[in-house]
């Protein structure tokens, strides 16, 4: 077994050991606030994954609450990626724009997105629009600021090469500036993906008629702690899945970056 796969196995062993410890501890304690993992897993299965085959085993609850939450995250992130990516490249490549906008951007970034939820509620009414706006507003900053930095710091030798070969504007953008910005863009996206989950839950807790935050509210007000824990564990799993997805996309897009830095592609 190679060292790398050995480490991978060790990692899973640690996770399994932690779950076992949790199980033993929760059983012994018998507190209704801390149900054992087995009970949580059973509840998760019953709540979301025991549906008919035709629905890919998803229950009505999963379709009604998990899918809308995922949709909002996807929509919010999509808006943030497009808005942050496009304006980031524009600001990063324009000395005048960055000069004017930098103080404003630094101020806006420091603003916690969750504090704007009341504003978004007033603006968009309760519901999906407000939640998507919250996610988009919160996740756009890491993407925007990193993209600005990336676009600003395109290697001057590469820019001079483009000038010396009189590379026209469009290929200069798509074949030089955008690829050169990608490593920083993805650094921002990584932060935004984790943020998106937090913002989704918060926005849905604040007022929603469906979604995982709404479900958590329900579980809490019915004092069903196993349900609450099931939701928490599901959110944690979703967070991990998002990270893996982001890493997969990044891995695909930035093969050259790892290679050029001397790591295997």
């Amino acid at each position, binding site marked *: 077994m190679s060292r790398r796969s050995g480490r991978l196995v060790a990692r899973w062993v640690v996770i399994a050991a932690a779950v076992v410890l949790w199980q033993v501890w929760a059983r012994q304690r018998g507190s209704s606030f801390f149900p054992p993992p087995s009970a949580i897993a059973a509840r998760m299965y019953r709540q979301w994954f025991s549906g008919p085959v035709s629905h890919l085993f998803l229950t009505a609850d999963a379709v009604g609450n998990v899918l809308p939450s995922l949709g909002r995250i996807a929509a919010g992130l999509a808006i943030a990626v497009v808005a942050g990516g496009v304006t980031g490249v524009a600001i990063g490549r324009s000395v005048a724009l960055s000069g004017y906008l930098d103080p404003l951007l630094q101020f806006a970034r420091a603003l916690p997105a969750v504090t704007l939820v009341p504003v978004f509620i007033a603006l968009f009414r309760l519901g999906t629009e407000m939640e998507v706006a919250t996610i988009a507003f919160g996740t756009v900053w890491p993407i925007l600021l990193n993209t600005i930095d990336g676009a600003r710091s395109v290697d001057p030798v590469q820019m001079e090469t483009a000038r010396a*070969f009189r590379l026209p504007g469009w290929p200069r953008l798509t074949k030089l500036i955008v*690829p050169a910005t990608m490593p920083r863009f993805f650094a921002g996206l990584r932060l935004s993906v984790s943020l998106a989950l937090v913002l989704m839950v918060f926005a849905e807790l604040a007022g929603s008629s469906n979604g995982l935050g709404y479900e958590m509210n329900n579980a809490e007000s019915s004092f069903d702690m196993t349900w609450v824990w099931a939701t928490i564990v599901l959110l944690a799993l979703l967070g991990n899945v998002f990270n893996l997805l982001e890493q997969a996309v990044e891995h695909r897009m930035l093969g050259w970056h790892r290679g050029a830095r001397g790591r295997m592609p």
Partner: protein
Amino acid sequence: MTGTAMLEITGLTHAFGPGASHPALDGITLAVGEGGLVSIVGPSGCGKSTLLRCVAGLIRPTGGSVVLRGAPVDGVPDGLAVVFQDYSRSLFPWLSVRDNVALPLRRTQPGRAQRRAIALEALGMVGLTDTAQKYPWQLSGGMQQRVAIARALACEPVLLLMDEPFGSVDAQTREDLEDLILTVRQHRQITILMVTHDIDESVYVGDRVIVLTRGPARVRADLEVDLPAPRDQIASKELPAFVRLRTEVSRLVRGQPGDAGRPGSAGGAGLSAPGADSRDRNRSRAARASQE
């Protein structure tokens, strides 16, 4: 100066910084004939690269003019290609070798298939057909510089500028690349201006060596290289003419007087002075006269 010069640099002056406080070039005058290969040497930091950037239209000089084929250079002119010293930064790591070479053709060749065909042909010329699908960072330094040369050749330039192109490769690779340039020149009608800090290289590759003074740069000497073709890394460098020239260039670069005052020389700074066997004595003498 001469009606046949394809590149005429007249009184070129450039200074950097606020109020042009850091002069880099101080009245460079130089004419290069069609098909010439001119080496430019000088002490490090003397402004060789600045000269090349002015010729390329990448920098607007503070004074003087550059005229390429009768047209004043104002911005990067048509028919010009550049090979930079820092190949690892001038090639784009996210593009394959073939796409790196094909990219500058976007301006002139609308068809992708056409661009790729030209790129492969250029890669063939530098002996890298097999690496077309690889990425630059998968290649050795010498191979990367070959890619940069192929990229320049693919544009079919009339004037090729090279800024210390072989400064960061090992000695063996450097010799191979020097010979590659000589081969390329045999097959294509192309004028080459090569900045180098390697004196042997300047003499071995060039058919003319321009020595610049310590910055701000002026033309200190303009020497004809009269070595028989084809040149050979070992045989050519044994020739008395080569040894004499490299010694002369070396002395000039260090700021010592040239062979002035020695027998057979007429007080000028070059071997193209009377007595030296020069193919283009008149042009060289005129160039020198304009410096003095």
